[in-house]
């Protein structure tokens, strides 16, 4: 039975994606019998191309997506190169977990609260530095160039890429390579770029593709921080899918396919860029230049990273500040009074989406843990060796634009008479929760000394007792961290909830994104703060529970 686990997982996983892609591709070419589309035609594409602002939307999508990815990558590389082997790197690592837990939407809303013309930064500087006694008439959020969108995405992607980079560095013995380079006279930054980066990059490749795909196709952050007329392609496509006129579904489907092409083409272009950069890097390495002390980068990169992490924290704080704010006139840096009035007024309205968020996240996480553990256990008991194809399958939902298969998947759910049910939402969340749960659990699970299991078996413990009493207990910490990651991912999902829930299941994320269009800052602050606090609480529990249970076990402390 356990042997079937990888296949069952693949079916649960690939089924919706295949059905979703087909269900988006067919309407893009006019085929959707339920809406009277019974002939294959290029009409949807004609309608798409005739849509006002499409060209600019495509340019915006490409510009913001690549800018955010390149910027995040550059910052992470600069930071890693500047801090290799320094305590700064370890400190940054400790700060990462809470930042990773923050949902995109909450962070984007908090970031808007920071940089808006009437935001915290302008308030902190006014009127003493700026002379403003009313907000300036600037477009610092929703700017037509998408700069706020790029900044918001970078803020969220950098912690993720940094975590992936740290994990990768742990596997390549970077310290030895650096010592060897230093002994040959290479400066720390040049040495890192020449000997560590080429080894690290393969480990970063898939996470980078995922960041690129996400940045090119993101919807919730684009709605909150991106330009409005025209918006990015993804926001435009969502607008058509949500149109009262169901005939708009045809150009919307064509737009989703165009988005898919942009993402796949974007990944391909990045791959080509990798080759070019690698060739240039080889020539650079061959010159034998040793580089200097790299003092500018060794000071500048950590400072920039510190600024970014501080902005992350400030974005969370400002949400809380607004949710507890009494009167708060413009140039004042803090509200003139703090009050529970907003929370009291909203507690009724918040309760239902909060419970829905909790229930869906718990169910999707439990299911993902079950499947991930079953796959990993099957792998060990039956000596399976998952190859590159299995790894790529795990990453698939993160490398495709959500819009490209969620619409088709929704159509399939309607056919199955499952749309708008809690089960459909959980299943759809699973597509995004499982990859993160699996990836964060697989390394520690596979790295566990197999002799523990052998020792237990020699004492008469059967495979299930070994699994439960030895493996799960020894790996309690990574197990709970994986669960917290899954919980955070689920709690932050916007489009999957929207499509699979058929508009009938509202979570804190869908409510917050809706409210971001113009609700009172206090109310919006409360929704976004709660949205951010739930995954944070999950992370805190994942750290605290093992520490408490193992308080008298020195051998169980984290290394």
């Amino acid at each position, binding site marked *: 039975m356990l042997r079937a686990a990888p296949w069952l997982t693949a079916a649960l996983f690939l089924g919706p994606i295949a059905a979703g892609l087909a269900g988006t591709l067919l309407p893009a070419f006019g085929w959707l019998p339920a809406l009277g589309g019974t002939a294959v035609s290029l009409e949807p594409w004609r309608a798409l191309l005739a849509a006002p602002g499409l060209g600019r939307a495509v340019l915006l999508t490409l510009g913001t997506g690549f800018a955010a990815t390149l910027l995040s990558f550059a910052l992470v590389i600069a930071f890693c190169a500047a801090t290799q082997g320094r305590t700064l790197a370890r400190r940054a690592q400790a700060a990462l977990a809470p930042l990773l837990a923050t949902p995109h939407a909450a962070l984007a809303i908090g970031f808007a609260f920071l940089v808006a013309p009437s935001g915290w930064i302008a308030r902190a500087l006014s009127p003493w530095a700026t002379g403003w006694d009313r907000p300036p008439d600037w477009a610092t959020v929703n700017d037509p160039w998408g700069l706020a969108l790029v900044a918001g995405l970078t803020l969220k992607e950098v912690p993720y890429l940094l975590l992936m980079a740290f994990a990768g560095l742990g596997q390549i013995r970077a310290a030895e390579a650096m010592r060897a380079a230093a002994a040959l006279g290479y400066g720390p930054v040049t040495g890192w770029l020449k000997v560590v980066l080429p080894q690290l990059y393969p480990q970063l490749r898939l996470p980078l593709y995922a960041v690129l795909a996400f940045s090119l196709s993101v919807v919730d952050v684009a709605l909150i921080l991106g330009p409005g007329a025209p918006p990015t392609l993804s926001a435009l496509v969502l607008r058509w899918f949500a149109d009262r006129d169901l005939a708009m579904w045809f150009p919307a489907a064509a737009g989703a396919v165009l988005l898919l092409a942009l993402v796949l083409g974007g990944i391909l272009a990045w791959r080509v860029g990798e080759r070019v950069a690698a060739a240039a890097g080889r020539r650079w390495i061959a010159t034998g230049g040793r580089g200097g002390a790299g003092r500018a980068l060794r000071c500048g990169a950590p400072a920039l990273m510190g600024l970014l992490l501080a902005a992350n924290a400030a974005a969370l704080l400002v949400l809380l500040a607004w949710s507890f704010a009494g009167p708060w006139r413009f140039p004042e840096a803090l509200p003139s009074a703090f009050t529970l009035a907003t929370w009291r007024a909203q507690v009724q309205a918040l309760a239902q989406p909060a419970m829905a968020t909790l229930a869906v996240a718990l169910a999707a996480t439990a299911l993902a843990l079950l499947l991930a553990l079953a796959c990993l256990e099957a792998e060990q008991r*039956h*000596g399976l060796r998952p190859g590159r194809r299995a790894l790529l399958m795990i990453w698939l939902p993160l490398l495709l634009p959500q819009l490209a298969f969620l619409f088709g998947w929704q159509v399939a759910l309607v056919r199955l008479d499952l749309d708008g049910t809690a089960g459909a939402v959980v299943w759809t969340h699973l597509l995004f929760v499982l990859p993160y749960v699996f990836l964060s659990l697989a390394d520690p699970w596979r790295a566990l*000394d197999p*002799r*523990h299991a*052998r*020792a*237990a*078996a*020699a*004492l*008469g*413990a*059967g*495979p299930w*007792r*070994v699994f439960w*009493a*030895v493996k799960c*207990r*020894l790996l*309690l910490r990574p197990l709970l961290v994986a669960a917290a990651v899954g919980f955070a991912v689920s709690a932050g999902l916007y489009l999957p909830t929207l499509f699979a829930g058929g508009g009938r299941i509202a979570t804190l994320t869908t409510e917050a994104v809706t409210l971001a269009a113009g609700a009172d800052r206090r109310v919006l602050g409360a929704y976004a703060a709660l949205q951010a606090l739930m995954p944070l609480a999950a992370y805190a529990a994942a750290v605290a529970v093992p520490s408490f249970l*193992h308080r*008298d*076990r*020195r*051998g*169980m402390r984290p290394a």
Partner: protein
Amino acid sequence: MSLVLEAPEITLGGRRLLALDRLAVPAGEVVTVMGPSGSGKSTLLAWVSGALDPAFRARGRVLLGGQDVSGLPPHRRGIGLMFQDDLLFPHLSVAENLGFGLPAALRGRAARQARIEAALAEAELPGFGPRDPATLSGGQRARVALLRTLLAEPRALLLDEPFGKLDVALRGRVRDFVFERVRRRGIPALLVTHDPADAAAAGGPVLELGDAAAG
């Protein structure tokens, strides 16, 4: 009760790692297998215990008291195993580790607890039950590991360089502790080592693996 390995032959990807005619370990005796690293000593023990990596192919039979156990999974063979590392479970206390080995057939909290206490007292570790294994000395950990193995009431014992990580002063004492208990229990034990002093202390027949595989 004796342990008999009948014509074991282990191959990896078509290459023969190890082949023996027959190896018999009488009850209460320690047979030592010696050989350079890479001669397949540990692989042989993995096969006997039933935990051979699926990458290997093995032929031959393991007979325990005349019964063929080759088809049984590791936990049903009743063959105890000790490694170079004690592998005490770090999440359990000393008593809980010992309790992990104690058969479920011994029922009742008090009875189990008493059995564990008795074992600890007999090993000159009285009152160590609630201790965190990470706070024990190397010699104490080795003794607890052996107690845990013996409490599972194995019908045979495999020793995979169990003294390799102990310092010289401790080595002799732990060795005596182990061998004395094997004799008292009257179970067959198979010892793998590269230390001639281990083989001498074991007192039983010695098999040089490099030679056997070649011949």
